[in-house]
């Protein structure tokens, strides 16, 4: 696989259903306390699974990035259902992130690299 094609693939949103629970995954990384009040970038967010976990753990702002518009539609739907106001989603690829320089305390590449 070439370096260019390796990131930015569309992954079936349904496949996220078998991923670890976000709370468990974030706890395994040992960053739960650090999430409080943090700005978080979730690269390859898919349906927002981990972004919602970070938002629920007290992050001030979570931005989820994914190249797949259908995944982001699902993510935005989920955000509305969860009434989370500290999460937003943007279409973009990991190689060219639509975010400003030096904005985030934590960037997560979960199943994304």
């Amino acid at each position, binding site marked *: 696989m070439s370096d260019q094609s390796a990131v930015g693939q569309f992954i079936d949103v349904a496949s996220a259903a078998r991923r670890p629970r976000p709370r468990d995954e974030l706890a395994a990384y040992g960053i739960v306390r*650090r999430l409080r009040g943090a700005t978080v970038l979730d690269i390859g967010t898919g349906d927002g699974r981990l972004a919602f976990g970070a938002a629920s753990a007290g992050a001030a702002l979570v931005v989820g990035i994914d190249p797949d518009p259908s995944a982001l539609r699902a993510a935005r739907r989920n955000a509305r259902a969860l009434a989370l106001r500290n999460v937003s989603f943007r279409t973009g690829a990991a190689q060219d992130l639509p975010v400003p320089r030096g904005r985030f305390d934590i*960037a997560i590449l979960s*199943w994304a*690299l």
Partner: protein
Amino acid sequence: MVDALHEATRALRPGGLLIDARPDSRVLARIERAGRTVATLETQRGAASDDRASDLAVSRVKRDGVLRRIRAGRFWHRMPFADRADFDTYLRDHLRFSHQPRWTAAWRAKAREWRGDPLVVVRAIRFEILTAAAPSSAAGRSSRAPRARALARSSRTRDLR
């Protein structure tokens, strides 16, 4: 992949953390029935190759002094299935796992009898926590931020049930 790591680093504040997490294809996944391993699952060649490319990309940005490791670890992800049919449906189109588990002799001997029993796939997830390397290569342990030091002390391996 290297580009993605550079981009993620660009988005971070000074002292920010980058977390890279992926299934660990160097470790065989196992299938458990009633707490005992009844099969192992290999990773498809293409997925394993992608994983190696990702590893190389991370190694490269560390070697180039873009990022440095704060901590690395692994946890176990358990995926429950109602029965063999449920598991087979999951495996049929799986992009990472081999579609042919290596069943143990014990399973093969009782396959029909155990067909309706719940199964659990247990797979390793590896992660690495990185931070932007200081511009000076003299950035050693003493230069770490206190929070980064605290993070480095926390436990390495967990079992997620």
